[in-house]
């Protein structure tokens, strides 16, 4: 049943349109920054747009907002995805099957696929825009590795956030309230990172354990040479650590959702 339900054309269309527009906007916006480095590299553009948040600039609203723009769009379209489908179809589906958890897992897989498609399309569109603006890949090996790492971190971190909102909404909380809680926690974690960086440098390794910081590629250690443009990174904060961390959190969220949906009243 999941395969059929996944083809929600209106959601796909909205994700493609908004993804394309964001890619164009970010392409033009960050091309000016990239030119300041006098290095017309597509890898650099990708990091600037999707993989970087200058920790010393977190106190300003604009960089944090720009970093969150792609996420805000996903939340807008998919924040109430499970709750909406549950409200709409629960009576017809759960009078035919007792497998509520399977339904929830199917919905979670759909969400994952939507977010994956959104980011693949957006990054592809961003690469096209950047190429048109005169940027090119300096090293294909490094470039591909960066794209894959960025895609994995963005995907998983944003999926975790969207899944959190969707699971919270199963607890009979208003969807808007769930979005507000999640985004506030996200912003608090980012600001906490900046505070740790500024006042508690010795404890900077804690940042990698804060939820929501795993999506920032340049904060990781041991990434490619292009990342040398971004001197701040957290020791022993590997991309693999973030991927495992995010997968575990997502699985825990899904487990909470399954426990809830199995016992909840439908009214």
């Amino acid at each position, binding site marked *: *049943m999941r395969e*059929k*339900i996944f*083809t*929600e*054309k*209106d959601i796909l269309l909205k994700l493609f349109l908004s993804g394309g527009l964001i890619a164009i906007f970010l392409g033009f916006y960050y091309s000016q920054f990239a030119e300041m480095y006098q290095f017309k590299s597509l890898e650099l553009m990708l990091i600037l747009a999707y993989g970087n948040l200058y920790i010393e600039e977190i106190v300003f609203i604009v960089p944090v907002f720009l970093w969150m723009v792609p996420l805000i769009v996903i939340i807008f379209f998919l924040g109430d995805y499970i709750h909406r489908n549950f*409200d*709409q*179809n*629960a*009576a*017809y*589906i*759960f*009078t*035919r*099957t*007792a497998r509520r958890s399977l339904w929830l897992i199917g919905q979670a897989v759909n969400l994952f696929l939507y977010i994956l498609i959104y980011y693949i399309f957006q990054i592809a569109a961003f690469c096209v825009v950047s190429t048109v603006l005169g940027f090119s890949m300096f090293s294909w090996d490094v470039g591909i590795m960066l794209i894959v790492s960025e895609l994995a971190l963005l995907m998983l971190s944003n999926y975790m956030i969207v899944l959190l909102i969707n699971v919270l909404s199963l607890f009979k909380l208003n969807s808007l309230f769930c979005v507000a809680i999640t985004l506030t926690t996200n912003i608090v974690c980012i600001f906490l990172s900046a505070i740790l960086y500024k006042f508690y440098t010795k404890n900077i390794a804690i940042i990698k354990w804060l939820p929501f910081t795993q999506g920032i590629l340049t904060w990781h250690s041991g990434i490619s040479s292009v990342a040398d443009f971004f001197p701040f990174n957290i020791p022993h904060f590997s991309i693999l650590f973030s991927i495992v961390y995010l997968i575990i959190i997502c699985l825990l969220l899904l487990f909470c959702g399954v426990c809830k949906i199995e*016992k909840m*009243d*439908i*009214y």
Partner: protein
Amino acid sequence: MKSIELINVSKKIGRKKILNNITIALDKGNIYGFFGRNGSGKTMLFRAICGLLKPTSGQIIINEKILHQDISFPDSLGVIIESPGFWNYYTGFENLKVLASIKNQITDLDIKQAITRVGLDPEDNSTYSKYSLGMKQRLAIAQAIMEKPDILVLDEPTNSLDENGVQLVRKILMEERARGATILIATHNKEDLIILSDINYHVNDGTVSLFQKNL
């Protein structure tokens, strides 16, 4: 033979008691009408019978199986509860096919017959979002009857239907009763109750009482 039995069923949501010590027994092959003002508990009662709501106390027994103990929901059930919820981007046939695929008991031909039975065209390529309110209601009835269930729980089945639609639904419900189905209808339409139901119940503040006067 008893099809549905409720024994001292109560349900509390927060501090509010929405179902209050309900005891009724419904025989197979009858149509039961439930009426009462808005918010009296008709829909909640139906949700409880469908297994969507777990009673705080009491037992619901469906065909000798205890709900939430032996079974999670009635094995053979067709439901319309409040506004029909289908997928907007599918046609009527595709919507029913997705739902039918859950139990996988009926063929495409059965689905098409159910759609035709409610006066819709199974070959219509319009998506559900283009359907009028009456067409949506007809499709909801088609999904409820397509698997030929033993129990039909219908909340306001004639809502949004024109006169022809109302007549057609009444005819379908008579046929379903003749087939042996136990049918529960909640409605504000007294004519439906007079024409269709064998026994009527009055629902008031979460309690249910047998209604013996003329409607």
